[in-house]
């Protein structure tokens, strides 16, 4: 081992900040890819990453980590473990791979943007590691489902999803493009690495890693635990970026970037993680409810993190706390009901034991959301499962791109009105699911205003024919790919023989 410890020479690996002479600052750092928010060039040079690592350490660590994950997969591959997973857990895993695998690879583009357009050499180095990390995450999370593709053809969506216009993928793409692929370097540091990775991937990855181990899916558990160690490292690019902004008197800029992305991330996490934690993970394996996870990781730990930097919780905090009680329950009903429009097989997750758990975690659940399931259960038991399927499409939010669920929030007693939020802007009418979603849009209309939601496309003639089969085809879902009930309606209990129910 070389004799000098890292701290003795590390500064020499990251002091490559100099004054440009032959091109202007805007020529070398165009604002569209690197918004300085008016902070002078030299003020960025103090950017100091909390977590230090050298190239040598990186390749030594990562080679070992990769060998570990790939060898777990090889052992498990032979044991056909995927065949033995519970249907709910399968739904969670298949949804995860579709929404996350290629998106992680794309996060590498966001990291490369910071690696080129970050405003300090130290930052660019950290982002270079981040670029490699995200390459790893994209490749691991496609390689592993690929091994099980023959057993479960739905895993094709780990690769295919981002090429489709499936509605959940439109929502995910809209979020992630705004967050990193179509974002500038400074905003990316705050919105991807700080808000999303420090705040939310903890929730997705730590939460799901714990649940995976309990569900017996060691493959998935080992995978995401390993990924999380990389995330924890490169997520730390946000903190020094915030410090530079705050020091330059731009705390409001950092706060605004945080608030916008925090809300956006919340909506997609409620959709993906909310359903996985509270409905898809087998009830005996659940470690926390989604709401408890949010309270622990986001509301306590994450708030403390940004308070340390002089930032405050977002202005819409009460609305967030309010939605934590109900929005993912509404999403779950929506996803189940519109299950042909998703690439996994949703499970209802409302057997008597599960309802008991839901009632305990969300007092009043039986009286509010439970009633919808009572009706669907009756239809199934009476031999009419087709009545649990949709004939029309819901309204979709022009910000988060998720169906507007305000009527369910209203019916459950959490909202004062069932109506969506409406904005007329430059001659077009926009619909939002919530006040913060409208606010997000209004913060940067140039980024969003010309975008068409899937319902705008449906109503505007982009989707032809404008029928449910036409829309499913537009979403990239062949008839055999459309989601079906993951348990063949076992949750509803036995079908009542026709003569008795008549």
């Amino acid at each position, binding site marked *: 081992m070389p004799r000098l410890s890292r701290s003795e020479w590390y500064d020499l690996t990251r002091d490559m900040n100099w004054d440009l002479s032959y091109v202007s600052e805007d020529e070398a750092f165009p604002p569209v*890819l690197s918004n300085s928010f008016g902070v002078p060039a030299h003020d960025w040079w103090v950017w100091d990453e909390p977590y230090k690592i050298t190239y040598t350490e990186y*390749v030594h660590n*990562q*080679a070992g980590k990769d060998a570990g994950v790939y060898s777990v997969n090889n052992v498990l591959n032979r044991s056909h473990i995927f065949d033995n997973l519970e249907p709910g857990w399968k739904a969670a895993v298949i949804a995860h791979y579709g929404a996350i695998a290629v998106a992680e690879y794309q996060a590498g583009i966001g990291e490369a943007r910071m690696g080129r357009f970050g405003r300090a050499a130290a930052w660019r*180095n950290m982002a270079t590691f981040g670029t490699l990390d995200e390459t790893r995450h994209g490749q691991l999370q496609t390689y592993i489902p690929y091994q099980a593709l023959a057993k479960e053809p739905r895993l094709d969506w780990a690769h295919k999803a981002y090429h489709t216009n499936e509605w959940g993928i439109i929502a995910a793409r809209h979020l992630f*493009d705004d967050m990193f692929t179509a974002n500038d370097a400074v905003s990316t540091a705050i919105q991807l690495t700080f808000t999303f990775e420090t705040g939310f991937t903890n929730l997705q990855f730590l939460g799901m890693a714990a649940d995976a181990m309990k569900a017996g899916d060691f493959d998935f558990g080992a995978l995401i635990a390993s990924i999380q160690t990389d995330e924890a490292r490169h997520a730390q690019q946000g903190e020094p970026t915030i410090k530079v902004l705050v020091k330059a008197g731009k705390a409001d800029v950092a706060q605004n970037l945080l608030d916008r992305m925090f809300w956006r991330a919340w909506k997609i996490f409620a959709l993906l993680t909310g359903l996985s934690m509270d409905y898809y993970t087998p009830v005996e394996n659940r470690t926390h409810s989604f709401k408890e996870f949010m309270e622990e990781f986001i509301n306590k730990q994450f708030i403390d993190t940004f308070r340390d930097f002089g930032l405050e919780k977002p202005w819409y905090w009460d609305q967030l706390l309010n939605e934590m009680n109900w929005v993912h329950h509404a999403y779950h009903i929506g996803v189940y009901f519109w299950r042909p429009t998703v690439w996994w097989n949703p499970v209802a997750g409302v057997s008597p034991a599960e309802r008991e758990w839901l009632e305990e975690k969300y007092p009043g659940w039986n009286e509010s959301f439970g009633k919808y399931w009572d009706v669907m259960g009756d239809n199934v038991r009476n031999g009419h499962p087709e009545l649990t399927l949709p004939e029309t499409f819901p309204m979709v939010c022009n910000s988060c791109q998720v169906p507007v669920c305000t009527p369910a929030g209203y019916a459950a007693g959490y909202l004062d009105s069932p109506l969506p939020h409406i904005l007329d802007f430059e001659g077009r009418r926009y619909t939002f699911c919530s006040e913060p979603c409208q606010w997000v849009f209004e913060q940067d209309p140039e980024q969003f*205003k010309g975008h068409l939601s899937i319902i705008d496309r449906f109503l505007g003639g982009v989707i032809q024919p404008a029928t449910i089969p036409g829309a499913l085809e537009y979403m990239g879902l062949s008839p055999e790919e459309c989601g079906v009930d993951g348990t063949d309606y076992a949750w509803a209990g036995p079908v009542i023989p026709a003569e008795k129910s008549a």
Partner: protein
Amino acid sequence: MATTKRKPPKTWSLLGDVKRRPSTYEVTAAKFNYHFRREPAPFEMDPAAPINLWYLANREGSPFNVEDWEGFRDPARMTYSDYVTVQHDRETYLDAVIDHHEAADSVTGLDPAWVEALTRIAVPLRFPLHILQMTALYVAQMAPSAYIINCSNFQAADEMRRVQRLAYLTKMLANAHGDAIAETATARSPWEEDAAWQPMRRMLEKMLAVYDWGQAFAVLDLVVKPTIDELVNVQLAALAERNGDDLLAQLLAEFHLDAQRSKDWTIALAQYALASDPALADTLREWVDEWIPAVDETAEAWAALLATAPNALPSGQVVEAAGRARAELLAACGL
């Protein structure tokens, strides 16, 4: 349980009806870059959002485009896992090289005149080499397929590797010959001010402002980097050897392996593009020609700097070698 009953797929559906089973390298890269030529715009934003327009102009709109970029392959076929595994071994080797020289205390024994030359020549290098890292990441974020993106990302990491080992060496020199060698100003002042460094700095700063993805690839990988790699990895190494500095020579020889990997994919990409559309030879050639005066000037200034060292190389050799390295690369590309 509603297990999907379908004919087991051979591979990802987007890869079509493949004859040969795709490799791990391919199934973890093919068609990952979903936003290239996506309609109505690359990203799921307003199609006229500024960054959509940036990509439409500089990527989709680049003159350096072919019908299908997905057919390109890295000759090394490297996945992330391959990259860190290979480099883990190479770094283990470099650790051993340094161990050997630390045990022998060889840096202390260097001729003070050579140390003085190193301070002027090798110590500031981390600035230009860092710009090669930055530009490789630009090419990566703009490239049309993941196969290309991965090559350029690994190249950027290689540049960081080179910077870091030179940083370590700088600290070794400082410990043996005076703390000033490791001060930022010792590297930055010549980089910013000395005449010898200005042609290189001018060239690299201007390269930072090249945003067409194909042009950025051509300028970095066909002209600038091969020249700098020859000047640093080969010519400086030769000079180090003449001055009994085996440590530096060994480090540089190692970096040249990385540079060779970059050349391999660069040649493969140029050949792939030219095979798809022979007219692209003119496009690339035009970009290359435009930058040749700047690299020539850089090579001359660098040669003059090397000539100030003890046991200097025969004059003319350095410039000639840089020109030859570039010409060989271009010829291999079919340009």
